[in-house]
């Protein structure tokens, strides 16, 4: 049974491989994103030494690592699910002998692995060559980062799945999907590290799951958080992973009662 789920990872990976040309442009565009953010932050720093606890060098690394992490964890599961719901093919998927949500997660993982190899690694190499990025040298930091990156993927995909399944309740969730995308980019700390937000906003963001996607792993990797703090970060990620399972299970259950097919 488990083998079937692994096949979903493999098949999605191979599908992505067939369309790999898209990802060459992706590498360029992600590098451009890092470049633009790098220069924007440099202009903001001006002559200043540090900003919200980040030195200029740490900010450069943070920007590069955050965008590259996004290259890995980003996927369109929300769009896939809401398309399945709208064209009615979800009815067939629900009666198949597998767990629909788990299958989506596996497909997301297949895509993630592909993005890791085809987009994140080459993009990282280019970013290191172009910008003064300082990566940690201890293997433990790298191992920790990879584990946290995996949790970033899990949490981001869970949010995508929740957004996608909401199409059961609002017939057209295009707006929600767009909103989710921007909210995740902004509040996860991809565009602005959370310490730079005004106090009231950053204290709100500390109790939301988004920071666990980009900001927390990025802080560890730039060396702002060390020692015991790393376990705290990991703990927060695990807790959010578990909490987000609740709405998914509930939505999945409620969806089966509510399912009405609009077409197809």
């Amino acid at each position, binding site marked *: 049974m488990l083998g079937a789920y692994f096949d979903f990872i493999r098949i999605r990976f191979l599908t992505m491989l067939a369309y790999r040309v898209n990802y060459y442009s992706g590498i360029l565009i992600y590098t451009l994103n890092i470049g633009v953010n790098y*220069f924007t932050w*440099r202009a903001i720093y001006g002559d200043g030494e540090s*900003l919200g606890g980040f030195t200029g060098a740490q900010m450069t690394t943070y920007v590069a690592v955050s965008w590259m992490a996004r290259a890995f964890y980003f996927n369109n599961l929300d769009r896939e699910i809401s398309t399945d719901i709208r064209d009615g093919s979800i009815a067939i998927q629900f009666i198949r002998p597998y767990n629909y949500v788990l299958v989506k997660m596996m497909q997301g993982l297949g895509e993630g692995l592909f993005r890791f190899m085809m987009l994140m690694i080459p993009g990282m190499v280019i970013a290191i060559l172009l910008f003064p990025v300082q990566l940690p040298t201890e293997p433990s930091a790298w191992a920790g980062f990879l584990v946290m990156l995996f949790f970033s993927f899990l949490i981001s995909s869970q949010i995508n799945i929740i957004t996608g399944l909401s199409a059961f309740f609002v017939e057209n969730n295009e707006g929600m999907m*767009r*909103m989710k995308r*921007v909210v995740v980019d902004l509040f996860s700390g991809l565009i602005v590290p959370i310490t*730079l937000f005004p106090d009231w906003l950053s204290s709100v963001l500390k109790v939301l799951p988004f920071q666990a996607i980009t900001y927390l792993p990025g802080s560890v990797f730039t060396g702002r958080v060390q020692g015991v703090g790393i376990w705290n970060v990991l703990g927060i990620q695990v807790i959010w992973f578990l909490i987000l399972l609740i709405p998914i299970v509930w939505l999945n259950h409620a969806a089966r009662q509510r399912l009405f097919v609009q077409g197809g």
Partner: protein
Amino acid sequence: MYYLGLLIEYLKNYMKTRLTYRADFWVEVISDLLFQATNFIFILVIFMHTDSLGGWNQNEVVFVYGFFMVPFGVFSCFVNMWGFSERYIVKGEMDRILTRPAHNLFQIFLENVDPPSLFGSFIGLIVMAISGSNLGLPFEWWTLPMLILLTLSAVAIYTGIYTTLTSLSFYSDAPTGILPLMYNIQTYGRYPVTIYNRAIQVLLTWIIPFAFVGIYPAALFLHRDEMRTMALLTPLVGAVFLSIGLMAWSFGVKRYKGAGS
């Protein structure tokens, strides 16, 4: 005249479909505005930590953002190519389009009109008015005509870029993943391009000219004389990129063979 009639018919149709999903209309308007609000937060956060961004103060950057919203709203309303390749090529709907008398690209624009986006333009005008009055900008006789001209030019630039990119889906079988990525990049045209290094400046000015939909035209109203030439070039850039887009499109359509069932 024929095309105007079509536009009105499609808008009527749009209203009818929208009335079926009434709540959804407002969800979209609100999510659109929230999208703009999050970008706005970025600017506000930046200026909590610095007084100027490459020599531009907060009100000026906010004004540029307000201008940026106006053409973007118009563009999103009338030219929405999101998901073209899935809907028209993979599912074969392009065949249906091509058998009809009106121009194919025009029909695709019509089928995807999205009036709620115009709220964004409206908010943009308000943002411009507020930050403009904070800055004490004079309202000249040319302000309004220039605003219309530059807005139309910026819409032409957007349309040119996105039509070119979308027509790539006639050449490659893959659903192109470039469009969503572009949406990130276009926002960079709002910031003073002079802070970037030469390569990025050239890229944002001449290759994917998103600087011409934000900072350059807005500089004209802000009386930033160093960018006046660039601002006045906007209509020309618009014409060039729109032509490139239309050419790429018509070459692409000729190559189209039909797929799907």
